[in-house]
């Protein structure tokens, strides 16, 4: 099965290839390498010091898509990790123990700095505490992001993050990179970030059209690639989103549905909102269940995990450190449960979804704990059909096609019945 490639896809592929080539050349270029996380990433700051980011979560999901994660996870479990804990962590540790061969088949350089941006996921802290032992030569910088427990950003939380940036993170960046912090350089990258963010919001907003020109979950994970990872704050990133936006506008103008691995979706039967990350080990197989049924995801919480721009936040060169702090605080899993329910409620309404689905991830408590309550609350508020399936991020042992298919068949039957019923009553 070959996915139909659009220009933006080819562009992203090239960006990734170039990035990984750059990573393999650090011994020659002398560039320093920063391992960090997607939620609350400080990519602009990393590039302001001419360092290169590596995202272990992305490596793990890529390993999952390439069917390598199972071996890595077993390796980590032999090392001492429990079956019960996050499969991203185990995949990353296993990959490291087996030689740290990255997604492109080339060896990844070890980190010079572990940037522990502890944002919306407790496991991040434990993950890098473990990596610190596996990479004893790396410096580690902790950036603790308080949770939005009150449902809003508290001023002291903002100040706390800015204080950490100035007293902990930036001094360590300076020490590792050997370069002085240049606020103007950071500000210029933040301006580019905001441009890309504007375009990303337009892309996701396009799902208000019928048919939706995008799948905001399975397609969405590709759309967020550049902005959530190594490219935010670069001109290449802006160029990518300009191209993507152009393609989406074309599809809107021509009444076309989203692109799937089997081509453009011909008929949009169901519009869904989904909570939770996708499964990566059987990504195509998982996606196919939905597009075969004519189901399109018009919004997903997962595509907000590395930054939430719907409500107007943009990286800003004015008070750049404050802007980074606000960004970190606003990531999806750093929002409290009532906020998450409100957001999902809003997306279901805004994108005129006729169903809500939870893909509950076995090894991700940050997302999963509370999802059953979220689901019931939305069902109560909106009287919308809800569905629930369970998979894992990158542990192939927890992907059971028949179980998932059975549950989804029932869910789609429910949606069909509802459509018929509402059709008659209206």
């Amino acid at each position, binding site marked *: 099965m070959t996915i139909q490639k659009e220009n933006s896809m080819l562009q992203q592929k090239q960006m990734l290839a170039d990035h990984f080539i750059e990573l393999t050349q650090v011994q020659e270029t002398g560039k320093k390498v920063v391992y960090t996380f997607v939620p609350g990433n400080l990519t602009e700051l990393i590039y302001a010091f001419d360092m290169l980011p590596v995202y272990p979560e992305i490596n793990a999901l890529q390993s999952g898509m390439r069917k390598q994660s199972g071996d890595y996870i077993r390796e980590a479990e032999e090392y001492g990790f429990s079956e*019960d804990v996050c499969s991203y962590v185990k995949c990353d540790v296993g990959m490291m123990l087996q030689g740290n061969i990255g997604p492109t088949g080339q060896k990844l350089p070890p980190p010079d700095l572990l940037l522990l941006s502890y944002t919306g996921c407790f496991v991040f802290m434990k993950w890098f*505490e473990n990596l610190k032992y596996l990479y004893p030569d790396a410096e580690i910088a*902790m950036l603790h992001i*308080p949770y939005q*427990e009150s449902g809003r950003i508290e001023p002291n939380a903002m100040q706390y993050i800015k204080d950490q940036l100035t007293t*902990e993170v930036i001094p360590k960046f300076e020490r590792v990179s050997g370069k002085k912090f240049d606020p103007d350089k950071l500000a210029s990258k933040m301006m580019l970030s905001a441009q890309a963010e504007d375009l990303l919001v337009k892309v996701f907003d396009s799902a208000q059209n019928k048919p939706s020109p995008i799948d905001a979950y399975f397609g969405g994970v590709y759309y967020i690639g550049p902005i959530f990872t190594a490219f935010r704050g670069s001109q290449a990133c802006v160029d990518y989103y300009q191209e993507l936006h152009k393609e989406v506008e074309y599809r809107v103008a021509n009444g076309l549905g989203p692109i799937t691995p089997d081509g453009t979706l011909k008929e949009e039967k169901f519009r869904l909102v989904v909570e939770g990350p996708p499964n990566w080990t059987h990504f195509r197989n998982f996606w196919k269940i939905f597009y075969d049924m004519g189901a399109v995801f018009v919004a997903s919480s997962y595509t907000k995990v590395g930054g939430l721009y719907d409500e107007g936040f943009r990286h800003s060169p004015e008070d750049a450190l404050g802007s980074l702090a606000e960004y970190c605080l606003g990531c999806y899993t750093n929002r409290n449960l009532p906020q998450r*329910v409100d957001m999902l409620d809003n997306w279901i309404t805004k994108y005129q979804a006729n169903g809500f689905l939870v893909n509950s991830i*076995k090894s991700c408590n940050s997302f999963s*704990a*509370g999802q059953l309550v979220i689901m019931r609350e939305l069902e109560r508020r909106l009287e919308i059909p809800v569905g629930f399936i369970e998979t894992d991020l990158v542990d192939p042992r927890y992907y059971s096609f028949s179980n998932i298919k059975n549950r989804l068949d029932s869910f789609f039957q429910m949606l069909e019945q509802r459509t018929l019923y509402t059709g008659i009553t209206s």
Partner: protein
Amino acid sequence: MKFDNFSEAIQHARTLFEDISFSYASNWKKQNSTRHIIGFLPIYIPREIIHSANMLPVGIFGAGDRIPVVHGDAYFQSYICHLPRTVIELAKSGHLNDFDGFIFPAICDVIRNLSGIFMLDNKQKFIRYLDYPQNFEGNVGGKFYRQELNRLSTDLEKLNGKKVITNELNHSISIYNEQRRLLKLLGDFRSEFPHKLSAVDYYLIQRTAHTMCVEDFNPYLENIFLLLDKLDVEPEDKIRVIISGSFCEQPPIGLIKTIENAGCYIVEDDLQLNLNWITKEIPTDTDDPIGALVDAYINHSIFSSTVYEGDKPKGDQLAEQVKDRKADGVVFCAPSFCDPALLDRPQLEKAMDKHHIRHFSFQYHENLGQFHVIKEQAGTFADTIKLWE
């Protein structure tokens, strides 16, 4: 309340432990209309502030096998730890109705999201997810924590109108200092004479500190000391172990008993870590008692899987504990699906190997009913050390 014999004193602790309706707290509350009950989840909260606001801090550590889980399983998937299920069960079955508020310390994603569930389910009650700094610089993390504690004090005041004021907070710190001193003495006694105070009895006494008001608990503990002096029990041929990883969801009483019966005196554990979280006496003569609590947290906290280890490796600190308590080994005893404990385990095990400390590990859940396999493991561990070390 004074006890003349040790069994009765322990029975009192057991009665409180088994009372999932927290009737002691309800009775305490009835005595004065400004009194409120604040429940808190593991691990640490600055109970002094709650006390100073004329409120009773009550530890909620799940309900083990003492309540059938009916509602709880509808709230959490099978791959999430057990504690939040019984907490939900307690709430849904009305056992927490007399509680006026709940504090959820920032220790993991499950407790964090449980706070959100409580927000959605208990809109009339005070719900606070209390974030602790993972940065231990006084002018960074300390400053943030001070603001969090000020916010907590202000919000508590809104509940009963009682302002937290300096001399009263100093008094609360003083009385909790005394509790910590007494509990440390008890821990030292337990470590020195583990044959005189069983692990289960020790645990039940500790749990009492999270149920009774401190004014009742301190005399109760003094009473216990007097009774312990009278006990005459012969030591048995058992090894000495430290339990690590049980700081949140609690192991069943039967499990604690099983480990000891299998030949392992438990001479240190982290089951009720809140009680010895602060390792130094907190000043009580200051005009800035909140600052004193902040300093205690930032500079004098015990190590924990929920706290960023920075440049103080937890493995080395655990090894130090083993040395201090003259323990023969460590039992890594963590609840299933517990991220903090289980993600620490590989490095802690490696640290024990580095320090030539024996260890073994297993997982449990709070309502576990079968201990046979663990008994075999613990027994073999004890025999190995006794025979070959």
